[in-house]
């Protein structure tokens, strides 16, 4: 079947999807069925944290697709993630209705606070879940498309492209910080109550969101895997390795870049949309260039051009972040920097490379043992 074809030569992917399945089956049981004082009980806090990591992992897969396979180092993917998050946040804001502090049934609290009398046009439609979902993909996709159209057509590549993507996310951050933009300024959107009528604080909603994140990661992974295995994916790698040759072979290099970049942005947007209801807030901080750089570090740590490596990197680095910021908050940034340096120097192919190295090493060992 399609699944076996996609995962045939992908040990990492098999392990990843297998563990996702186990996690998706176990987590609800451990969280909902076991009493809170049971030793195996999974707290809702941990469950939400895991869900958040899974969203980050999907984001990392999106970055790996364009960086690992196409050679576009995007230092602005946080922008697409945040835009998807804002689209979902706007829906959640509208769901609050008259339960806000000011009790205005039409306007979110921050608009009442700014003395606005009516909803700005770009908030129209966000009270419908379907419309919000559409925007989750459409807004980041459209931005990536327009941005890519100009950048790739004029053959901006390499460091220059990285810098422009960085500028893009920085500009968006500054814009979203402004109160007049109508996105809540520096507080962002928060104080969400419910999603599709389900209470966001309820354990069952949290479990559902966790499952949705796991499903999105699995589907996103498979979609990227299918893309990478297709002829288009091989053309992408050809562009990464020898752009000029690909052009003279008859491929419209700019078009390939444009579509893959847009697809990757949509994936990032979906990750952002799943992230927001779980953490309960979206603010312009997600647009910060630092966050986008951090994503690249996840991918580098996990191993470029493997997809499953990106997932492993995102999970590992974010787990480390949670641990460090809890236990030794002042050390975290140094630890992150050190990790990046160590990986770049000693593990150029990341954790995935380490795994592959170990694999061949044990196989060789076994073969030598087998020899008389």
């Amino acid at each position, binding site marked *: 079947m399609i699944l076996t074809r996609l995962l045939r030569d992908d040990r990492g992917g098999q392990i990843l999807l297998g563990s996702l399945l186990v996690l998706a089956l176990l987590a609800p049981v451990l969280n909902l069925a076991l009493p809170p004082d049971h030793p195996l009980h999974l707290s809702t806090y941990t469950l939400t944290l895991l869900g958040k990591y899974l969203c980050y992992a999907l984001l990392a897969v999106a970055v790996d697709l364009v960086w690992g396979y196409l050679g576009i180092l995007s230092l602005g993917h946080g922008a697409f993630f945040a835009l998807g998050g804002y689209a979902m946040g706007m829906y959640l804001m509208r769901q609050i209705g008259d339960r806000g502090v000011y009790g205005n049934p039409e306007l979110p609290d921050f608009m009442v606070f700014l003395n606005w009398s009516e909803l700005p046009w770009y908030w129209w439609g966000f009270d419908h879940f379907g419309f919000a979902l559409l925007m989750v993909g459409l807004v980041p996709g459209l931005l990536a498309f327009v941005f890519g159209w100009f950048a790739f057509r004029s053959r901006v590549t390499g460091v220059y492209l990285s810098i422009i993507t960085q500028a893009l996310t920085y500009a968006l951050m500054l814009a979203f910080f402004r109160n007049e933009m109508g996105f809540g300024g520096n507080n962002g959107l928060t104080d969400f109550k419910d999603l599709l009528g389900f209470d966001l604080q309820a354990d069952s909603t949290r479990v559902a969101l966790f499952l949705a994140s796991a499903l999105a990661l699995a589907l996103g992974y498979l979609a990227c895997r299918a893309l990478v295995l297709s002829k288009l994916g091989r053309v992408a790698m050809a562009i990464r390795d020898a752009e000029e040759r690909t*052009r003279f072979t008859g491929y419209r290099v700019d078009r390939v870049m444009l579509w893959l970049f847009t697809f990757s942005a949509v994936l990032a947007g979906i990750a952002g949309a799943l992230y927001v209801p779980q953490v309960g807030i979206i603010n312009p901080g997600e647009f910060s260039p630092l966050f986008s750089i951090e994503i690249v570090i996840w991918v580098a740590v996990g191993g470029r051009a493997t997809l499953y490596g990106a997932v492993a990197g995102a999970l590992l680095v974010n787990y480390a972040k949670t641990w460090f910021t809890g236990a030794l908050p002042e050390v975290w940034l140094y630890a992150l920097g050190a990790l990046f340096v160590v990986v770049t120097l000693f593990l150029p192919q990341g954790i995935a490379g380490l795994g592959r190295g170990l694999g061949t090493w044990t196989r060789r060992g076994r073969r030598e043992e087998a020899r008389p």
Partner: protein
Amino acid sequence: MKLLDQTRQLLRRDQVFEFLQPEINPDLDISHRTLLYLEGVSVSFDGFKAINDLNLYIDAGELRCIIGPNGAGKTTLMDIITGRTRPDSGSVWFGQVINLLKLSEPEIANAGIGRKFQKPTVFENHSVFDNLELAMAADKRVWPTLLARLTAEQADHIDQVLATVGLLEQRQRPARVLSHGQKQWLEIGMLLVQRPRLLLVDEPVTGMTHQEMDRTAELLTSLAGEHTVVVVEHDMEFVRSIARKVTVLHQGSVLAEGSMEAVQNDPRVIEVYLGEAGSC
């Protein structure tokens, strides 16, 4: 009144709007036997005239060698034909109807002009087979590429080309492990699967052993006829072994043209080449 006149002009019935005329005619018209026309082409980089009022005609099916000292404009000439460099003036036509100056590099490639670079450029991380599969003539737009499946017929064609360039045994190996000469052949193979009408081959034998050189000469001569081949080369011995007609470039324009002997005995050529021509 002026507006009315303009409208009348616009609606004249004896004309076809320019935007309605197809820019790329897929059917290459070579009814006049000439495949490639370059007329009055000039290009300069920062005041240096790399190509200066160059006229060059290549017949269909011919094997043409272009020689010339360093800086004569050989590689620039290839860049112009493949769309990498736009000339300041002049016209470049592929057959009677395809204006190459209006096409982008991929469009020129798909119109039937294949190019081998001076430094062998292949897709290092792909297998030899994949290299050819990617290069193969097909609908190369994004969606068709995404959905493309290799047919048995296409796979056969690739194997056939692999046999032609002598890389059948390397079929599944990554291209990066090939020797320098093998990479050159792979690149020629990649051009062949594109089914081009015109092959532009830039210095195919640099860094090759004598044996490899002989094989390459054999390969290129066997390609002429069905394809039109233009070879730019430094190595005089190699040129003599394959050339039927030679064009000598000097300072961006054609100095002499004709058979190898005629060209070698041309006093102007001897003057330009000095020792080099003498040693041939």
